């Protein structure tokens, strides 16, 4: 433990190319580019590498999701590892240089912006909820194809390494740090939220978004809202959403809930009024949320991803040949 471990502090650290050179990555690719992360200690022993509030693209190299590192006496607990091998390697370099290595890695859910950096952490357990590991294994190749086409050279050397070990939910000590692992769902079929007992920090994964449009490819609106109720019953000292800044209010909870309700209502209304999905898309996002990061493209994607849910409710079976 460092001498200042009992006081909350904020610190910034550049993790750049120097940190990655020691790792076994294709060096030609590594030498050409770097994420140059800034890591901030948002609570005692809780470090945040914040993702861009945007869609996956070549400007951000896929670094859009938050990565959290929890300091323990045995190294870091790394929560989510980014979209690429390079990103994982740079996170790993930070853990090695500042937190004494890696004790364990957690993947909050199966979307690739949260686990495609796993290869850099394969020498310690990579933990997730059971359905997350299954979905990651099942979809890994498809995600890989999509990410290579979107991110191009940023993906150099990236192969999917799905989480292997199931976590036991509940209150426990992980590498000596007291955590409550909450098995929730709704953003995907399995969403792991983590409450850090020492600091009271909630690491919510993609159940919470702040100032960036939520992604809905696997969403179940009713289940997600129930999970928000569970998170709303907590009294965290601070919250780290899956995408968006650390904050000490209930802002992400309120915004995510409002976004889901408004978007759910908009798509149901569109289907009930007989609009086509292309018309619902062309009408754009709910005006109150048009200014969020990754808009309007995230809304456009959501219309395609979720349209069938609403259309099936709006139409009536007239034949069952």
């Amino acid at each position: 433990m460092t001498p200042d471990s009992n006081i909350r502090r904020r610190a910034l650290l550049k993790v750049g190319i120097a940190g990655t050179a020691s790792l076994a990555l294709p060096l030609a690719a590594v030498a050409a580019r770097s994420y140059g992360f800034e890591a901030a200690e948002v609570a005692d022993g809780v470090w945040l590498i914040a993702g861009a509030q945007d869609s996956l693209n070549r400007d951000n190299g896929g670094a859009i999701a938050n990565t959290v590192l929890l300091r323990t006496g045995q190294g870091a607990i790394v929560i989510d590892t980014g979209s690429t091998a390079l990103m994982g390697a740079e996170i790993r370099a930070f853990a090695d240089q500042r937190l004494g290595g890696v004790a364990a890695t957690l993947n909050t859910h199966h979307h690739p912006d949260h686990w495609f950096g796993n290869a850099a952490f394969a020498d310690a357990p990579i933990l997730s909820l059971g359905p997350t590991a299954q979905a990651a294994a099942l979809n890994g190749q498809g995600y890989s194809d999509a990410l290579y086409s979107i991110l191009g050279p940023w993906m150099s050397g990236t192969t999917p390494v799905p989480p292997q070990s199931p976590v036991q939910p509940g209150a426990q000590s992980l590498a000596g740090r007291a955590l409550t692992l909450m098995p929730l769902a709704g953003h995907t079929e399995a969403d792991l939220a983590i409450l850090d007992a020492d600091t009271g920090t909630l690491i919510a994964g993609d159940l919470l978004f702040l100032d960036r449009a939520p992604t809905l490819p696997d969403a179940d609106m009713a289940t997600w809202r129930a999970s928000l109720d569970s998170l709303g019953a907590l009294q965290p000292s601070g919250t780290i959403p899956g995408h968006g800044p650390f904050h000490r209010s209930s802002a992400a909870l309120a915004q995510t809930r409002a976004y889901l309700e408004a978007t759910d209502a908009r798509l149901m209304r569109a289907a009930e009024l007989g609009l086509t999905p292309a018309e619902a898309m062309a009408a754009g996002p709910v005006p109150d949320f048009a200014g969020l990061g990754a808009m309007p493209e995230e809304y456009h994607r959501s219309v395609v991803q979720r349209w069938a849910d609403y259309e099936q409710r709006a139409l009536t079976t007239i034949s069952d040949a």
Partner: protein
Amino acid sequence: MSALLTQLLPGGGPVRQDAAPGKADPWDSGMWPLHRADWLGDPADWRNDAAVVVLGPEAAEDAMHVPFTLDATGVGAVERIVVTIDYSPIPQVLTFWPGRARPLLGFGVKYESGSPLRASVQRAGGGWRMGARYVSAMGGGCTAPAAAHGQPDWQEGFGEMRARLWPDTGRLRVWLRHPQDTGLAPGIAAHHLTEMVLEDDAGQIARLELHAPVEENPALTFLLPEDVSGPVTIRARDTMGYRFVGEVAA
């Protein structure tokens, strides 16, 4: 006035076609002169026209389901609408004879690679007017990939038809469970819809010729004429001789 309904959602304004009107192909595509000759008969009277509105996404989030809506109600009397995709292994998507219906159509397609989708509208007088939209096929990333597709369980619910008619706006939406196999995947024979017809007491309303690039479990939107008051019968058939019938009333 546009027959589109985007303004029914808060914040949704009118939509315009954005490609420059005129005789030039806005995408300068190598395929278009060939397609124009093959499917339109190389007409002398042809141009890109903002009156043909084609709504679609910028990128194919799910390449198996790329939604489009075309609105040619600003063109005048329409004989038929030919929909093609430049860079598709099967470029011919569908041909729509609106008949008594208005020339508006919603549909979804499969997309192979980045390409314009074109709606070529033959006016009653003979000239052709085109609207088009370019769709990037790169996708949006976190897409659940095609694991749900290509499973040999298409017989389950095969032929189920869902529909609804909205008398206020004249909209009719039809959904049909059908695999729409292209025949391009190894070991899977082509099996897709070839025709859909709308009828009422007064006879045929509209007819649609369909091809393999139309999405699996297709959903189609029509704009009925004002003289339709009774129930509408929807008939469809496919390459294997299956026939599908359903009736929808307001």
